[in-house]
């Protein structure tokens, strides 16, 4: 299974790099689709069907909206200007990337291998969840019973996003 996930991750990285450098914006959007749907297959292989359903639906909706936006506006990638300010930005990006990569190398030394986590807090949830919540689907039981505050927070985040979109995206404001 690790080999399959590694191959899919390789495809996802290639797709992401192609999306950055594509001259045609439509092919860049399609290449971003590779990343999203590859993530769906990874979730399925890691036995997380709940996440896979959400990811496949959200990926499809965003892909459709992005394709509509690209077809409606322009398909050409902007040529980046090269001046002193962009040079500083590039150097800063490389320094930050090197720092993050160093801490990533430090982190994978101490991490458990994939799927072999020590179940500290999660042990409480996994063992007695069906009796305590009555929900056979463990994920829903955790989301709406043990961690219901998180779910309320997510719902309020979506509500705020919709509120912000309707408030900001208007041509004339109300007096």
């Amino acid at each position, binding site marked *: 299974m690790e080999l399959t996930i590694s191959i899919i991750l390789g495809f996802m990285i290639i797709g992401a790099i192609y999306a950055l450098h594509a001259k045609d914006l439509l092919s860049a959007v399609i290449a971003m689709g590779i990343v999203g749907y590859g993530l769906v297959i990874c979730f399925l292989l890691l036995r997380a*069907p*709940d996440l*896979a*359903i*959400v990811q496949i*639906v*959200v990926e*499809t*909706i965003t892909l*459709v*909206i992005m394709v*509509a936006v690209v077809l*409606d506006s322009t398909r050409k990638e902007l040529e980046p200007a090269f001046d002193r300010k962009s040079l500083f930005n590039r150097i800063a990006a490389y320094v930050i990337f090197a720092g993050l990569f160093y801490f990533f190398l430090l982190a994978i030394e101490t991490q458990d291998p994939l799927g072999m986590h020590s179940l500290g807090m999660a042990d409480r949830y996994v063992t007695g969840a*069906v009796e305590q*919540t*009555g*929900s*056979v*689907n463990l*994920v*829903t*039981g955790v*989301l*709406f*019973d043990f961690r*219901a*505050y998180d*779910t*309320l927070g*997510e*719902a*309020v985040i*979506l*509500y705020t*996003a*919709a509120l912000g*979109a*309707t408030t900001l*995206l*208007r*041509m004339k404001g109300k007096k």
Partner: protein
Amino acid sequence: MKGMSIIVKKVSQLMAGLIFMYGIYIILHGHLTPGGGFAGGAIIAGAFILLILAFGSNALNLKKEIAGSSNTESLAVLMVVVLALMALLFGSKTFFFNYLPKGEPGALLSAGVIPLYNIFIGIEVAGAILTIFLALVIFKEESSK
């Protein structure tokens, strides 16, 4: 926004109802099978977005629709809070307490208030995604005029 060709219109007309029903199935069986309020709500919003993109619409109709969808999602998120507050009246006095009878695990009517939370979170997610989409479409329609 103008609509697409007749083939796209006919296929999306046939498919949208099935997609909508699948979203309702995912929401109602959220405590039994994978999925739940978030996944089902996104699927339901996808059915509406499919129809709007295929058939096209003018800004006036879209404004009526965005009023409806934003009202619906506001009411749904309010209902989630009301359901959580009702736990302070019944059972032990804790916020988000599961106060309804649990029933037999695996049955459709089980798990207490979790199916109700699923339904209202599903309505909220569907309304929110649809509202954001409609706000973008209306902005584009008005700015191109």
